[in-house]
Structure formats: structure tokens, C-alpha cells
């Protein structure tokens, strides 16, 4: 078997020759992107948090209640549903780094939760007790359970389909739509000069998640390319429906996130952004756009889309890359 999928434990023990260069490149970049939450000092943000409105504090707490457990849920999806069924060493390297990053993100939210004056008990229980949040989690768990309760036979079409379903669920939907919509909400505070250091933390998380998404999409495209039997209209429409369902779930969640409005944001604004993101993911998978809405958050050009010149006495420079020497040799 020569594709990216496979289960042989003794396959994929040698890195060279590298077959999937994109995975190697992503690994190199991910290593350079290494950061730690304690590089960020939150003193000023605590002062901001205290003077924010109840609705604003609720939104931030709600976001972290969601992100914190779900970063680890991604790890379960990777550990049970992706890593075991891949036999390219370069992809394993990347997945190992990604799993560390998810752990690091979880610790970052912990860092914030433990530093901010937040009702931690409530924050930790929301993902179970708030129905719109629990529903999103159950959706993910359903796909992971398929992997934990019985082993996939990755040689069969059914096994490969389950592999792709899980990939779409955690990567395209959870990371690529749900997390991204949360990022926009989190960064919106910085546009009003609130929670700037928390914003720096988010910058790093988004930088990591952008790579996770690149990896996921490359992986899906590769699996589809190598396994033409998956390219059926039935399977395609099932995948598309998953994404449309996810948008609907996110709309309910956003109502709970922002029951009233806050300055610059309300639930329907976020929903429009979610649809904008969903269209982008659909197009990346080769579908047509479904919602055809514009991006309401034009300010993301400032918050996220451009190189950042940091007045470094006042703000953390998040665009550095660690590991100046550690680029593995590329084309020799």
C-alpha cells in the first residue's frame, strides 16, 4: 500500500524519502511557531475585564468555556481517528506537533481562566450544562466514538469514509468554522482597545490553527485523490450536509453567547460571519458556496490579515519565530 492511509505499525518508521512534502513543510513551520502562554502578561487585561459590561464578560467567559475543553477534544479526534490510520512519517511528525499545540492552547485558556476574576466552576461546567454548547460537543463525539468503540478497517470504503467524516468534523467544522468564529469575537475586544494581551494570545492560537487547517485540507484532498472510490455524489452531499448542520448549530450557540448585543457585535452579525466562513470551507472542499454573504467584520483586515508592526514597549511582538536554525534541510 503506497497511499497516505494505512495501519501497519512498522510502516512509516523512516522519514526519508519524504513523500508528502507539504506535511514536512508544515512541520518545519509549526516548530518555528512555538510559543508559551506565560510570555504574555495579563495585568492590563484584568483591569479591562473588571470594567467591561456584564454582557461582555459573559461573552468572554462563554468563549473560553467552549474553547478550553474543545482543544482537547481535537486531540482525541487526532489520537483515535487520524494518527492510527496514517502511515507517512512526515504526517505523524506534524500531528505530534499539532497535538502539543492543542495542549498548549488548552493551557493558555487555563492560564487566562486562572488569572481573570471568572467564576471558574461555572466556566468549567458550561460545556455540559449549556444545551447549545453541549450539542456541538455531542456532534463531535459521535464521530470520534466510531473510532474508539471499534477499530476502522481503513482498507474498506466504509472505513475510509468514516476517516473522512471524522476529519471534516474536527478539522473543517470544529477548527475551521466554530473556532474561527470564536476568534473573531475574541479579537473584536482588541479593536476597542480591550484585552489586548489576551488578543496577543489569540494571535498565536490563530496562527497555529491556520496551519492545522492547512494540514487538514491537504489531508482530505490527498485521501480523496488517492481513493477515487470516495468520490461519489452521495458521499459528497453527506459531507456538505454536515457543514450546513454545523452552521445551524452555531447559530443557536451564538444566541447564548450574545443574548443581547455588545458594542460592535450581536448574534446575527456573528451568524453572518459563520456563514461567510462556511462558504469558504465549502469552496475549499470543491463545493459551491451556499450562503453567498459578505464578511461583516471588515476590521479583521486590521486585527488579523496584515503584518503587525509592534510598538514593542507597549505590546507583545507575536510575530517572531523561534528556532532560528532549526529549519530542516529542504531540497538537497
Amino acid at each position, binding site marked *: 500500500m503506497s497511499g497516505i492511509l494505512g495501519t501497519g505499525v512498522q510502516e512509516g518508521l523512516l522519514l526519508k524519502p519524504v513523500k508528502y512534502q507539504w506535511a514536512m513543510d508544515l512541520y518545519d513551520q509549526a516548530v518555528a511557531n512555538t510559543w508559551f502562554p506565560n510570555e504574555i502578561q495579563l495585568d492590563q487585561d484584568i483591569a479591562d475585564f473588571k470594567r467591561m459590561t456584564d454582557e461582555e464578560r459573559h461573552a468572554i467567559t462563554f468563549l473560553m468555556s467552549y474553547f478550553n475543553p474543545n482543544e482537547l477534544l481535537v486531540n482525541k479526534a487526532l489520537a483515535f481517528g487520524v494518527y492510527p490510520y496514517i502511515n507517512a512519517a512526515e504526517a505523524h511528525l506534524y500531528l505530534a506537533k499539532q497535538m502539543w499545540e492543542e495542549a498548549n492552547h488548552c493551557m493558555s485558556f487555563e492560564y487566562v481562566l486562572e488569572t481573570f476574576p471568572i467564576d471558574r466552576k461555572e466556566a468549567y461546567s458550561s460545556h455540559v450544562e449549556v444545551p447549545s454548547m453541549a450539542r456541538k460537543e455531542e456532534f463531535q463525539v459521535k464521530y470520534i466514538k466510531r473510532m474508539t468503540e471499534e477499530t476502522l478497517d481503513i482498507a474498506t470504503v466504509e472505513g475510509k469514509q468514516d476517516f473522512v467524516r471524522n476529519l471534516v468534523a474536527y478539522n473543517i467544522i470544529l477548527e475551521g468554522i466554530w473556532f474561527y468564529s470564536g476568534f473573531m469575537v475574541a479579537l473584536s475586544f482588541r479593536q476597542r482597545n480591550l484585552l489586548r494581551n489576551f488578543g496577543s494570545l489569540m494571535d498565536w492560537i490563530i496562527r497555529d490553527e491556520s496551519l492545522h487547517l492547512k494540514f487538514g*485540507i491537504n489531508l482530505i484532498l490527498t485521501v480523496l485523490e488517492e481513493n477515487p472510490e470516495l468520490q461519489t455524489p452521495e458521499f459528497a452531499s453527506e459531507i*456538505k450536509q454536515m457543514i450546513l448542520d454545523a452552521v445551524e448549530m452555531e447559530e443557536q450557540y451564538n444566541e447564548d453567547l450574545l443574548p443581547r*448585543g455588545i*458594542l460592535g457585535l450581536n448574534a446575527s452579525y456573528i451568524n453572518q460571519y459563520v456563514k461567510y466562513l462556511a462558504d469558504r470551507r465549502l469552496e475549499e472542499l470543491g*463545493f459551491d458556496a451556499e450562503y453567498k454573504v459578505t464578511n461583516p467584520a471588515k476590521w479583521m*483586515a486590521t486585527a488579523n490579515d496584515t503584518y503587525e508592526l509592534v510598538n514593542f514597549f*507597549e505590546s507583545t511582538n507575536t510575530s517572531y519565530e523561534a528556532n532560528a536554525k532549526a529549519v530542516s534541510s529542504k531540497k538537497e
Partner: protein
Amino acid sequence: MDITVVKRDGSREPYDANKINLAIERASAGLDDNITWVTQIASELGLTLFDGITTQQLDEAVIQVALQNVKDDPQFDTVAARLLLKTIYKRVLGDYESDAELARLHREHFAPNLRRGVEEGLLDDRLIQMFDLDRLASALEPSRDDLLKYIGVVTLNNRYGIKGRNGDSLEVPQFFWMRIAMGLSLNEENPTEHAIRFYEKMSKLEYLAAGSTLVNAGTSYPQLANCFVMEMQDDIEHIAKTVRDVMWLTKGTGGIGLSVTKLRAQGSPIRSNNTTSTGPIPFMHTIDSVLRAVSRGGKKFGALCFYMENWHLDFQEFIDLRQNSGDPYRRTRTANTAVWISDEFMKRVQNDEDWYLFDPLEVSDLNELYGKAFSERYAHYVAEAEAGRMHMFKKMTAREQFKSILISLSASSHPWLTWKDTINNRALNNNTGTIHLSNLCTEICLPQDEDNVSVCNLASINLSQHLVNGAMDFALIEESARIAVRQLDNLIDITKSSVSEADYSNQQNRAVGLGVMGFTDVVERLGFSYESEEAYELIDEIMEHVSFAAIDESAELAKERGAYPNFEGSGWSKGMVPLDSIERTEADRGVPIKVNRKSRLDWDSLRAKVKGGMRNATLMAIAPTASIGLVAGTTPGLDPQFTQIFSRSTSSGKFLEVNRNLVADLQRLGLWEKTRESILRSQGDVQIIDELPDELKQVYKTSFQLSPYAFLEVAARAQKWIDQAISRNMYLETRDIGEMMDIYYGAWERGVKTTYYLHMKPRHQAEQSTVKVNKAEDIIASASLEGANSVASETKSAPARRGFAGLGNKPSE
């Protein structure tokens, strides 16, 4: 949903779209397309509204919506600035209808607001005693607020404007400029007249005083000096005193340079209790914590840069202070670091020789020496070490250490590289002692010791306001330089710190540093490339004029007010001007300094004049102007354009910066609307636009596309004329350590005294939100590119198929 707005008094009224539209229309007056803008802003505002929004939130929301359109047209920035100014006017002066009424309110409120500031103990009593307030009030020109960009209004308002004890804003921008001008005229015989002169310059943004002066001038706590430079002595009493001084200077908003070279190394013996020292690192960590505990003027955290000579035994750990991993107690997350490098080291790098590290306790004179004298003494200690007569030492190759400095620089932007021998040999002011370090921003070169904390007082000429009818107005530059020098000299007699060694040194030396900002803005408007001979010639000529006028004015002030106390024995007293010290430095170094020596003005007569007396030990330094550059609305210092569209992160938030000069050029060519999305997608790189004429591509390179040697050449040409130094920011795309070694060696070769922060080009950015992105298409594009280049490669650089394309577009089927 019916939307009601909550007013200040708590009552509610229905949301009135008309009222908002009218306000936006007014803010767009005189700009192109204002009708379409009104509808656009209004409809985007509609998306964000919610029931129960307050009037204040509504004001802020309108501004935010205007701002998010800056990426499509920088004129939206003007709209946002006007909207924000209006809310400030309303808060400080009350409602108004017309410009005439606004001007009247300015005049009427000026004196009462000053009085309130004095009554609340915020402002200096003399502001209401010494001045003809009616005359000052009628000199106010509210129309000059048009010169401010949005980020300038925000910065003025957040950082510099005075607020009453109950939080009320007491100042509109023109009140602020006048208060600063008054605060710097308190020692003049005719204070009203001088306040108006200074006000005219600053309110027209022709020059600006530096940060601390803008925060504190005219207040009851006038710490107006900007830079403090001090040494920590190798004794516990002085270490404790230093912690205390750092606290006070930070409270007064000063930036601090602190040398730790004299502290004995880890493991070095302590006689008094027969133990060994922990070395300098833990003390640096302690000071780092102090910086976060005491905020600067309640607005920013403290800022400090540690300096160490690279022969210190603990130097490797000094490099690691800014690493993002490792023992947090051996890190300084807030403080910056810089290395103080000798000619001897650069030569050993060049010749691939060994480098020795010593314990300062055993080589206590080394820190006082520079140039040839340093080299001789260093060679002596090396011989002692090799002969086994040194208690502790380490040995490595000079190149190995140079590399580890540069690796750390590329990963953490620290330590900054500064050259002690160039600084000391070129100095005209070190007749009283050695210069042991530079300051927080690497532009100050002043001597210090246990009794002297050196102090420098800064201002910067805004070159953008001196480009008149397509040419530099050198007469206006000289006028600005002269008035600025007088204003700076006044500052010295008005400022107070809570560190007596600083006040003493300030009085003895009266050091000032006049710099420039807006160089790149001017270069672009003249149609030059930053890396062209024209640009090099321009900075050379500009700085010659600034230098000439500043020195001449200081000599004039000496006639009027007397020479500075430490004048005798200085380079000035021997008839030297900054240009003359290049030769001296070259002779000591024994290696040519690669910079031209051309001059244009009558320096001989000035040489004769300075011999007769100078008012100030130093006159020039180019500061980074990272904050006041924003107020001036121009490019900071000598910095290039970071990229053509980028975001700026400051303590007032994150702001989008679009190069207005480029947009104007593209609009002229009818290209802006067509290309703006691709320019955003490329993170502000216009080299991708095929239709753009080559000349413009040359003008609008990003900082990472410019040759790093251009930054060095611009600095070297400015440095010719400057007695202190330049905060030379660096920008690099390359991560090749060999290339970096050449570049930083090139800085030393050109006689550049210091380099400052290094910005590395990020290799990877987060997925963009507001431009079209399709990763699958990007993957295919890169795959086909690779495919064309490689022949039947086994490696799959990317999958080829486009996912589910053409399969499942109708989910209901």
C-alpha cells in the same frame, strides 16, 4: 427589532438613523464620494446595533465602522478622526453648531479649564500666574486639528491629554499643545511670547517634544526629561539604590538604560561573608519585576534596556534573558537587552580569533577603557589567563559568540548591537568620563558614573511638514531646529526628577537630542527609492542643516545664558564639530570608516564659534518616535515603510496603516480599486502588480524588500552630523546567519554607532479573513509550479484533485 438608545441621563429614545446619517455626512464634508460613504457607513452600522445601546457606545460604533473601511480608502481615516474629535469637543467644550462657534468655545474655555487643572492640583500654578491667558486663548487655532490622523487623535487623547480628578477630559488638542508650550516657557523673561512661538511650531506639527515632555509639561509633576542612563555598581548598597532610582524614574515616565557590566560574575567570591555571588542575572530579573509594578504615568509599563559588555563571564546568560523558554527567574520579559561591543571584538570576528570572557572583579578597569587602550589591556588579561593567573575565565571563538548574539537577535530581537568604541571616539562630551552604555532606544551617548545619572531631553523635527512645493525647505528646517533647541534648553531648568544624581548631571551637561522623523514620507513624496543615492544624499543634506543650526543656536544660547558647566575640555572647547571626530575614530580603529565626508555649509566659522562656548554638551540624536510619530501622522524616525498596508499595535489598540502616498499614486493611474484586494492579500507588497510602472515599484518596496545595507547607509550618512546616535531599526527577510554577520559587520564598518530593534519577516501568517482565500486552489497552484520545475519527482508537494468538485453541490438530492 425596535432599537432604543439609552441617553446619558438614563432615558431612552428610539434610534434615529437620520441623526447619525447627518453626523457622518458632516464628517465626510470636502472628501470625494461622501454620499456613497454615508450610506455605506450607515448600513454597516445597522448590522452592529442592538436594543439598549448607549449614546456613547453609538458614537464609538460609528467610528469603528468608519475605521474598518480604511483598507479600501484611507480617507475613511479622516472621517473617523473627525468623528472622534467631535466627541472630544463635545465632552470638553459642550455642543456647538459651526466652526466659528467651535473657535469661540476654544477661546472661552481655555482659561477656566487651566484654572480647574490648577485648582485640582494637576497643573503648575504658574500657568495661570505668569501668562497673558487672553492672548494665548486668541492664538489657538482649532483648524490645525485637521492635521491629525485618527491614530494621532487617539494617542493625544489617551496618552497625553489631562483629565480631571473625576475623569473629565480637560483638554482638546489645541489646549494640549498650548499647555505644553507654556510648560516649557516658565523660565523665559517673556513667557507668553515664547509659549506662542513654541505652540505655533508644535500645533503645526513642525516639531514635537518627546513622550515624557508631552505627558508632564505644565503639570505639577514636571519630569520632562526622556532618557536616563546609569550604571549599577558592584556593591549591594548601590544595587538597592538602583532599584529605588528605577522606581522613581519609571513613575516619572522616563526610559532607562542600565549597565550591569560591573557586576561580578556568578561564582565570583564575596569577601564579607566568604560566599560566592549569584551574578548579575537575578538582579536583572528583580528590576524587570519593578518595571511592571510601577507604571509610567499610570499609562504604560516601565521601559528599560540592560547593557552588558560581551567579555563578561555571564554574557551567554545575558543573551538568554529574552528567550521565551527556560527558568522564568532567569528571564526578563519586560526589560530589553543590548550588547556593548568593542572594536577589538569586531576585529577578532573578522580575523577568526579567540574571544575571552572574564569576571569583572578580576578585570575591574576594562569597563572604563575604550579603543586602543581597551585592546591593549584586554590583550594583557588574555595573556594572564593563558598563563593560568586568572581565577575564572572562558574562551570561545569570536565568531562563535557573534553567531550566538545574532541567532538570539533573529529569534527574540535581542540583544541590540551597539559599538562602544565608535561612540566614545566620536564623542565630543566624554571629557568628564567614559560612556559605558547607551539608553533605552540606543540613540543617547552620555558619560555616567556613581555620581552622575546621565539625562537626555529629546525633540524631533517632522520632515513631512518641511516639504514645501515639492522641495525641502532648508530655511524652515533651520528655523525649526533653532526654536526646538531653545525649547529643549528651557526644559532642563524646569524638569525635576526624584534622583539627585540625574538632576545634577542634567545641570552639568545640559544634554539635548534633536532628531527627525518622516524621512520615508518625504522620500516617497519626492519620488525617490529609499535605497537610492538620492535618498542618501537627502538625509546627508537634511542632517547637515539640522546639525549646523542646532549647534549654532546652542553657541548663541551660551552667549545669552552661559556655557554648560562641563564645557571646559570638551571637544567643542577645542573647536571640534561632529564631522571632525570621524577621522579621530578611524585613526584609533586603524580600519577605514566607510562613509563620505562631503560638507556643504560654512563649518569653519562654526568651529571658531563653538570654541567660545556651548550651552549644551550634546545637540542631536534620532529617536525612534514610535509614539510621537503617530501624533505627527508621519513615518517614524528614519524608518522605511514597514509594508504598504499593515497594522500597528500600540497601547491604544491596533490600527490599520495604509500608505497614503501609494494610494494617491495608484489612484492617479486608475489602479487602486483594481489592486487593493491583492495588495491586502500580499500583506502590502506592490511588486506583484504588473501594471505598476517600475519607478513606482522602486519607491514602494516593503522594509523586507529593501536592501538591509540601505538602512545602514542612511544611518551612516545621518551619523556623520550627529554627536549622539540613531535608533536604527532593522528589517530582514534573510534568516541566514552568515548574511546577518556581514550586515552587522557592515554597520560597524560604516561607523554606525548603534542598531536597534530587529524586525524579521514572518514566514507564516494566520489565514486571512477579509480577502478571498481558497487553500485548495493555492495548493494546486503551488503544485503545478513545482511540477513544472521538477522532473518526475517521487515527492508529492501537494495533492492535485480539487476535493468534491463537481460532485455534491445539491445536498438535498
